[in-house]
């Protein structure tokens, strides 16, 4: 495990892979009321854990760099367009909550990438974006391939360490709730290891699986229709709700840590 501890350069704006700069509300305008539609039970609504680096940037009125690194769902699969995928919509949602702040989002997700493959890119591509926050979505591709659980757990731990060494806060995002593949694909053990990784490391776990399961059970979304139009509507809704919930998680974290200064 090589730890790449870099000196902290200034907040460069010369980013290579900036997909999205702050814009107001995005395409998902028509009748989307996330506060009621995307409601979840209180115990998964927000962890209340702090994001000190994000809070510090906001306080200093500096640009908040966010990197999303994940696999298929984060690269925009399912959404009707890239702009409808949750990473792109996240800046819009954050803009509503922090109207005076500036967020810069870099999406480095690639379909089918394993946790170990993403972790190899932390010191290079992720570091180059100088993020204050890294949203690391993983576990699905590893479950599909049946990656050994113990080594998956080790990659999570060393990966979080590497990101922390970049002076970034970390949000881990677990798998999607995928009802049709449940009997063939068990992401449960991988989600367990993610839950355990944050117990020994400082990171926030975003319970995407439990949220999507809740929305399906509540009838907010319905994946059983084979019609293309229904699918697209549901998929965009999920991406929108994920973006909304992520933004609320970040808001809660910043507020909970508002009293104290960011610790290095």
């Amino acid at each position, binding site marked *: 495990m090589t730890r790449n501890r870099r000196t902290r350069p200034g907040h460069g704006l010369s980013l290579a892979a900036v997909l999205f700069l702050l814009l107001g509300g995005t395409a998902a305008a028509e009748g989307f009321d996330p506060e009621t539609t995307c409601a979840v039970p209180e115990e998964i609504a927000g962890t209340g854990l702090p994001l000190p680096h994000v809070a510090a940037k906001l306080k200093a009125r500096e640009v908040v760099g966010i990197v999303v690194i994940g696999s298929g769902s984060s690269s925009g*699969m399912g959404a009707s367009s890239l702009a409808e995928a949750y990473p792109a919509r996240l800046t819009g949602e954050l803009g509503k909550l922090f109207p005076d702040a500036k967020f810069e989002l870099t999406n480095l997700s690639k379909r089918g990438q394993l946790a170990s493959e993403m972790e190899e890119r932390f010191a290079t591509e992720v570091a180059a974006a100088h993020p204050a926050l890294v949203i690391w979505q993983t576990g699905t591709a590893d479950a599909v391939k049946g990656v*050994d*659980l113990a080594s998956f757990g080790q990659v999570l731990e060393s990966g979080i360490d590497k990101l922390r060494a970049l002076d970034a806060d970390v949000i881990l995002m677990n798998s*999607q709730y995928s*009802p049709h*593949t449940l*009997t*063939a694909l068990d992401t449960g053990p991988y989600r367990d290891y993610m839950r*355990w990784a944050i117990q020994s490391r400082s990171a926030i776990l975003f319970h995407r699986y439990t949220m999507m399961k809740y929305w399906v059970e509540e009838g907010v979304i319905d994946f059983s229709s084979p019609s293309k139009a229904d699918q697209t509507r549901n998929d965009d809704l999920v991406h929108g709700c994920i973006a909304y919930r992520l933004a609320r998680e970040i808001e809660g974290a910043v507020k909970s840590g508002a009293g104290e200064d960011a610790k290095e």
Partner: protein
Amino acid sequence: MVTRAARFLKRLFTVDPAELVRSGQRDLRLDFFRGLALWFIFLDHIPSNLVNWITVRNYGFSDATEIFIFISGYSASIAYGGTMRRRGFWLAAARILRRCWQLYVAHIFLFVIFTAQIAYVASRFNNPMFSEEMQVVDFLNDPSATLVQALLLKFRPANLDILPLYIVLLLVFPLVLWALERRPVWVLAASAFLYGVVLATRVNLPGYPPGEGWFFNPFAWQLLFVIGALLGRVHGSAQPAVPRNRVLLGSALAYLLFAFLVAMSWQIPLLAPIVPQWVGSLIYPISKTDLDPLRLIDFLSLAYVTMWLVAADAPFLKWRVSRPLVRCGQQSLYVFCASIVLSFSGHFFLIEVNDSFAAQLAVSVAGIALMVALAYLLGWYRRAERAESVEHKGSARPLPRA
């Protein structure tokens, strides 16, 4: 206290074979708890089912797999130990291998049903949102490799992992049983040593795709099977199998409480802070693949408390309401296969037709009712066959139990 434990261990390892020959009475506890494990396995295999809240895995580290493997070792030792003592090694070995073959055929049958269901889902649902998840069915595109690897037990889809484990454990069981009859201490020592090697090196049987091991590592899980087989040897003798020791009981209960609290912290995120960070970094991860010591101790504590609380002649085992569980436990292979098929179908119904709580309850009850009906049917058939063979031969020699 210590001397009592020492006496028990001594008895366990120096049991008089003559005493064991007459262990005729069937222990209903085995059937009851194996039946319970089968019901739990069925419920746990329907992921979108709220009813699986009642199963044991939510309240500690271990789950129904441990119960199933332990009782399988225990009853294999009862069923084939007697044969080996009375009729010799070769007949016992032949019977064990015949059982092994039945399990293998059952596993391949389940694999075919599983594949058919997956193929249907893959052809009907292609929501791009789940295209990454759907890669799990890519094995359908390469039947030549997949089928051969499945026959070799190297390719085992999720939820079809328990039978292959049971198969390889039984495959070497003739030798284990032979050694258990002669040098039980050595067998336990060798088994524990192998388990230790796994913990240190993570050695595992090769799987498919290449590079990945078995989800249930047989080199680790064999320890539980051997412990079961060892305890099964003293089954039916006059003394209780396990000494009643209050300190041991207290430690077991304390450990179960600890496991319960930790497990609760997984279910209810608000409770997460009750596990301090240093405890978390000490105990996590808890490997199911390698039967983590935390799981093993959890199950052994549970088994000890159960043996303490439930005597072999506990009245509730003979109550009418216990009969369905006992019957399922007595027909474990068929009921197990049925439970897998039923959990696939039940899950399919829930995601395709109706996923309300009423539907989840109905699917759970209907599935268990069908498992019970199958067990009664098989029991009736078996008794009828036995009665006929008695008529023909005029002898009342009981059929071997398995």
